[in-house]
């Protein structure tokens, strides 16, 4: 394995001293027959070399759509990127021609998906599928691609890689298929790995194996990782920073430990309080009342106000800006400090 040689400097400097990857004020809507769904409403986040950012949210919060916009794999139509920038090493991907974006996709930023069975082609052996990228993109010969595929399968700890090269996806278990997909994503030594719910379809014991593998790979290959998930437990184990999304916005952004200790947005607070905990057996779970909003009719002001115990008239009238709470923490809530003090209690 020559991976350590690929990224010689740990935190590879990016032009303008900026971030490795930065999403700036992204707006995405889906235009459908029933109306316009505002799926992403001004999302900004950044990722530095070697770190893990978790993007947390429930279904429909826009966490996967943001990732698809970064990768340039949104279906347009129905999706329309209204405004915003996606800067990779200082260059805006959204203004670049498809040819240039293709250079970035897979080679610089790679992605793994939730459902490995449907992400892999059932009619080709896995070795061939891992090697395909190498033949097409790196111009490797069949033999070289094959050898590299074995290396990659070893890297993601698939036992007896050489013998399994000719096996088809259905011959692998769920956990092993996820490893195959990780091997494919790593083929071009990407600097950023986006993992979209990588363990949601897996059992707990296998989930633990895959999360360990991702953490090891990220460290050994010095990649930056965006982990998209709905599982507060998974996030707590691997992420450095966390961005919580609700109705297409980032409502809270903080380092993992301070966030779990004292959330500063009522939505994060509600989420943390509503999960049953292994380490405590309460009588009644506290809940977040109501439902997530219909993205075609997002409530005025703060989109969370109809469900929020802190809501006042100002929340209905005024969209809250990100309030900075020290340590680079932000919370998009008019009462952020109050919420933070309540949860710290």
């Amino acid at each position, binding site marked *: 394995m020559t991976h350590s040689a690929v990224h010689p400097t740990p935190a590879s400097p990016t032009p303008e001293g900026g971030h490795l990857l930065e999403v700036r004020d992204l707006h995405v809507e889906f235009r459908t027959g029933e109306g316009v769904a505002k799926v992403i409403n001004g999302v900004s986040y950044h990722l530095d070399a070697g770190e893990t950012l978790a993007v947390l949210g*429930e*279904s429909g919060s826009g966490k996967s759509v943001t990732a698809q916009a970064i990768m340039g794999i949104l279906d347009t139509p129905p999706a329309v990127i209204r405004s915003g920038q996606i800067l990779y090493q200082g260059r805006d991907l959204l203004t670049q021609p498809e040819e240039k974006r293709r250079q970035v996709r897979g080679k610089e930023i790679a992605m793994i998906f939730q459902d490995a069975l449907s992400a892999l082609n059932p009619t080709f052996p896995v070795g061939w599928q891992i090697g395909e990228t190498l033949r097409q993109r790196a111009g490797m010969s069949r033999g070289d691609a094959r050898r590299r595929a074995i290396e990659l399968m070893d890297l993601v700890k698939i036992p007896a890689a050489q013998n399994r090269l000719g096996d088809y996806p259905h011959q692998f*278990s*769920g*956990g*092993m298929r996820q490893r195959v997909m990780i091997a494919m994503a790593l083929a071009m030594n990407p600097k950023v790995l986006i993992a979209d719910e990588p363990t949601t379809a897996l*059992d*707990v*014991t*296998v*989930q*633990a*194996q895959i*999360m*360990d593998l991702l953490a090891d790979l990220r460290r050994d290959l010095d990649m930056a990782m965006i982990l998209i998930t*709905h*599982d*507060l*437990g*998974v*996030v*707590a*184990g691997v992420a450095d920073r966390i961005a919580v999304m609700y109705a297409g916005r980032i409502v809270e952004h903080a380092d*993992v*430990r301070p966030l*779990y*200790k004292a959330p500063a947005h009522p939505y994060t607070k*509600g*989420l*943390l309080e*509503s*999960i*049953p*905990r*292994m*380490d405590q*057996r*309460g009588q*009644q*779970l*506290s*809940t*977040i009342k109501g*439902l*997530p909003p219909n993205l075609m009719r997002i409530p005025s002001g703060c989109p969370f106000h109809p469900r929020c115990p802190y809501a006042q008239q100002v929340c209905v009238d005024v969209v809250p800006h990100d309030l900075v709470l020290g340590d680079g923490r932000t919370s998009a809530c008019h009462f952020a400090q109050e919420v933070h003090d309540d949860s710290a209690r």
Partner: protein
Amino acid sequence: MTVPASSTKVRGETVLSVENLVKHFPISRGVVFQRQVGAVKAVDGVSFELRRGETLGIVGESGCGKSTLARLLMRLETPTSGSATLEGRDLFKASGSELRRLRRNMQMVLQDPYTSLNPRMTVGDIIGEPFEIHPEAAPKGSRQQRVQELLDVVGLNPEHINRYPHQFSGGQRQRIGIARALALKPEVLVCDEPVSALDVSIQAQVINLLEQLQDELGLSYVFIAHDLSVVRHIADRVAVMYLGRIVEIGTENEIYERATHPYTQALLSAVPVPDPELRDNRTMIRLVGDVPSPANPPSGCHFRTRCWKAQEVCAREDPPAVPRAADPHPSACHFAELRA
């Protein structure tokens, strides 16, 4: 609330008793002359008792047989062998009108609220359909009223009786599924992963509803789930399944605080805890490999291929699920002991 709680019945008495239940699905080869070449041992000798008013949680990974067990209890599958009694009546020997009566007492809540409701039926028709099959449960004239009561019980607006499933969110649909299961005033609800398709904030609402209904109606739950945190929250007793067998069964406290089976210990240690500081203080048991195929389970103890304690005896002898002196709840391991 007009659904009468089963007030005459004693809490704590056994409602459902399952004895050595086995379900093998045959694997056959050949087109014309089919012969059986093996069997998937989905459920391989399961015994437990469910008491009135309690929740028995059944946990395990995919392929451990927990859903097949649910289908057997509902008589959607015929068992290969074994027996089960519901309130003293044999579940698998009953037929005809006796079976219909038994079925009224045991209903099921399914996992996926998107596929388990017929999109072409109104909510009123979905919840009222059990009355078509069991007309004695509600006279024709009072059905609409009963359905509206049920909607109210599960926290939906009774005026929405003429809406269709697609007009509801996932959590609301699961409430419709629960209302349908409650229509015949059952004693036992078999819930097969009832909240795993729901978002976290909605999941808590449905769990609270199930707990509230249990208190009000005196229901007993068989609660099948893969999420150990959810099961700890709702269950009174917990059974841990692995490859078709119950490897450990005990009260919620015995399983979560004093587990003696290595598989239970590994499973518990793998659950992601949503607290970065707590995580630092615990050591995870990392299991290697995947669950073996239930068509060809390992000899002796099924777990031995992934177990760090495995000795020669584990391949030879099947450990019985028996209580031991140190820890008086059944654990099917030759070397059962508390985690150091």
